[in-house]
């Protein structure tokens, strides 16, 4: 199945950059958790499993995977419903399936399944413009997992499905006018969503973001501490395992949501530039594979995967500098989290898959 020809077209630069980010992540988790802990170990296993997933997603032709996308999509939806009903509760949200030895968070895999599903759906399309019905179908495919995840509740992950749908639909020829109308509708709906759809803690996080000092011990505390961590890092940082904010636990969930703050504190602006550069490189290289893709399916698939990866990276980095409201969104490739790591690396497997098969039939 694996051909030498494909091996030659492999994007080694992208893979190296991805691995570099994983290693930076592990080292900062090591620092934030105080040494070689179980958490670091889990993360390393996550990366290894992720690399296996990457290899699998790379080896099987993406077109074959796309043909099976409706099965994958359905399986994930079932898993999501299972989680919502019987899942393990952590941090107030029902997100995990407990397998005893390890937990799996199906919502991490929804992004991939949705990207695959939508790419397949619009990739098969012959028309230059999407019909109204097509758009409704896309909306339904997106809305089903979005609503389920939103009720876990995991609003952050749920929202990340929206750019996936929009990017694929837009690339496939959704009229710009419609995009404008939907944006307007979204703005008008915002107060209603605020009132009825958001939970208390979510409202609190957003209002605290607008004025962190109003709640310096609660939600605003994390934001202030994140900003202090980043700011105190300076140009060259406090040094590995020397950051007081992370080491002395002023920074909450430092190894997870705020791993980038730890990096900024200990490695300074220099470290931040390196990490930002790596992420930018990864995204640009991936976009390049979308351009090079042999077929529309491949291009849509790459865009669909990137459409959740990129906003998540940008949002988390903003949050870790106290520039965005605190949301339980991790930083892909760096934050602690096995499911997220496996899903992200699998996503890169898909994107690399499109690239190496750009000359095949």
């Amino acid at each position, binding site marked *: 199945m694996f051909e030498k020809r494909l091996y030659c077209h492999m994007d080694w630069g992208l893979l190296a950059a991805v691995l570099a980010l994983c290693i930076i992540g592990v080292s900062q988790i090591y620092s934030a958790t105080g040494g070689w802990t179980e958490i670091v170990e889990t993360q390393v296993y996550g990366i290894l499993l992720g690399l296996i997933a990457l290899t699998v997603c790379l080896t099987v032709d993406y077109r074959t995977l796309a043909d099976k996308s409706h099965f994958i999509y359905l399986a994930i939806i079932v898993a999501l419903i299972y989680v919502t009903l019987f899942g393990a509760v952590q941090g107030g949200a029902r997100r995990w399936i407990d397998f005893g030895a390890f937990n799996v968070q199906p919502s991490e895999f929804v992004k991939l399944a949705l990207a695959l599903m939508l790419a397949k759906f619009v990739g098969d399309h012959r028309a230059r413009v999407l019909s109204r019905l097509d758009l409704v179908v896309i909306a339904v495919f997106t809305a089903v997992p979005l609503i389920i995840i939103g009720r876990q509740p995991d609003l952050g992950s749920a929202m990340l499905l929206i750019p996936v749908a929009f990017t694929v639909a837009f690339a496939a020829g959704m009229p710009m006018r419609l995009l404008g109308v939907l944006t307007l509708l979204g703005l008008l709906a915002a107060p209603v969503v605020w009132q009825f759809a958001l939970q208390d803690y979510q409202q609190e996080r957003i209002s605290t973001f607008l004025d962190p000092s109003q709640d310096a*011990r*609660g939600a605003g505390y994390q934001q202030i*501490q994140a*900003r*202090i*961590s*980043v*700011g*105190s*890092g*300076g*140009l060259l940082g406090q040094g590995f395992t020397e950051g*007081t*904010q992370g080491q*002395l*636990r*002023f920074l909450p969930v430092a190894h997870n949501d705020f791993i980038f703050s730890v990096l*900024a504190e200990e490695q*300074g*602006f220099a470290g*931040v*530039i390196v990490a*930002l550069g790596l*992420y*930018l490189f990864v*995204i*640009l290289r991936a*976009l390049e594979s*979308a*351009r090079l893709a042999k077929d529309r399916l491949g291009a849509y698939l790459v865009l669909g995967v990137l459409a959740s990866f*990129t906003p998540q990276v*940008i949002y988390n*980095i*903003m949050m870790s*500098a106290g*520039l965005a409201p605190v949301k339980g969104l991790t930083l892909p490739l760096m934050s602690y989290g096995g499911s997220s790591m496996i899903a992200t690396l699998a996503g890169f497997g898909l994107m690399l898959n499109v690239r190496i098969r750009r000359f095949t039939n």
Partner: protein
Amino acid sequence: MTALKIAVVVAFGALALSFWSLQVAQHERYLEMAESNHQRTRTVRASRGVLFDRNGQVLVENRRSFNVSIVREHTRDLERTVSLLASISGADPAQMLDTVQRHLNEPVYQPIVVIEDASLAQVTAIMARRLDFELPDVLVEEFQTRQYPGQPLAAHLFGYVGQASAEQVANGASSGAIVGQSGVERAYNELLMGQDGERHVVVNSMGREIRTLDEVPPVDGHRVQLTIDYDLQKATEDGFKHAGFNGAALIMNPSSGEVLSFVSLPGYDPNGFASGIDHDTWASLNSNELQPLQNRAIQGRYAPGSTFKLVVATAALEEGLVDPEHTVNCDGGASFFGRYYRCGLAGGHGAVDMRHAIEKSCNVYFYRLGNMLGVDKIHEWSEKLGLVGLTGIDLPNEQESIVPSTKWKRETTGERWYPGETISVSIGQGQVSLTPVSMAVMISTIANGGTRVTPHVIRAVDEGGGWKMAAPPIISGRVALLPETLSVLHDGLWMAVNAEGTASRARITGRDVAGKTGTAQVVSNEGRQAALRRGSEVRSHGWFVFFAPQENPQIAGVIFGEHNEHGYLGAEVARHVIETYFAKQEHRGLPALEVAPVPNVAPTRDSESVLFVDGLPTEDTVPMTGTF
């Protein structure tokens, strides 16, 4: 596709700029915030100096104790913390909340002490509550607390310590510092307190200390030796307990002014103040009508009764008005200015000279001397003997003793002096109002032949290089008493104890104790019924002043019995003290005194009926103008 690339590049460029702004442009500011996050300055308390008695016995020391504080910086819900902490420790939540409210203007990281000197059980219960999770804002700190003798002893002498008051902070004490609030603790606070140190520490987000950055070690307070003799102090207090009345006593070396024993009763337990007193105890101490917080030895002022006759005798002899052989015929009373003043002995003493007048405490004899002297001469000689104003003892808040004069009366009341008032004054009633400490100075002056010593309680200080004797206070004054004056006074005082006098209860074979009793009315005869109806205490105060031995006295002092009715009851206390003193001098076993296990409180007013059974041999009668 290019548009997407540009969008991503712009977004990352914006991120890089934001991080530049935070990390480089505003670095200083955030670095400072990070430091104030995790660096704290903690006070390291200096150990307070230990107090020793004159023989090196420890009187007041320090012990380990625990304070429980709330650090508001880590408080999420103050009421929850308080109610949880109160239920664990069994403290009063309302009071705890009140304590926190009083410190609200302090920095949030400053621990607010809510349980002072927590018991070990409380500390264990609190520590068991996983402080990091359930009570992240609760801090248990170990420190040193004052340890006073378990059985309250010399409470008013030692005084107590407490957190610096607002006034003390204004005068330079640091906020929250433990400073002496009364007694020796206050008088010698500077020596005892030492200098608190500082520790610069790194704390984690829960406020727990991680490591020390640097430390300025505390300078411990100096050790201080008092002139007090523990055994004598105990003997005096035991004497009072045995006798069953309250009052005050001051025993000293008559030639140096070194105080050997300092008593004010009822006492209190200074351990209750050592780390802060609870509201209830404080309120009950303050509202107690026996006023246990009053230091009677230096703050209580009482009419001296017949002990004052020594002053009148001295004045008359020194002024040359009479000679010792001057004899007065006492037939039980005498009339002055149209009023009849009675003597203590209903039938009269017959013909008495001055020695016998002192021995028997004949009022008529001293009425006549007083009348001859006039109040101003009495005032003058009172001052020379140490009875006017302050004695200058090295303890805080001494009250001035008062012996009236024509000038004094004009200045205080604007009225002129009536010669009749002098008659009452000459037996120590009327406006004469003296502190026990001034009485101790007076009897010492008579004992040592005219040197007015300044009583003091500090003997030596160890400032780190071993004991150094404290400089003795300056002599307050000297009056060269005529030898014959001294001989008459010493004879009369010896006879009062050893012949047919009023103070035979102080007699110790071979010790030649010299002493004089006094009983002072607290209300006039006319006022007595009214006072009784009011429910006031009307029983007389009893005094006993003494020195021993008569030749070259080594020990002198005063026993004041509050409402104990008879001066001679104090003589018994004095005898136990003197016996203890000589036993120690001669390295014999200390004399035992059976202390009845009765609480040391004044009898209730139910015993009125007993109070006024006349015929008990009081040595003094009731002067017409006796008031207090």
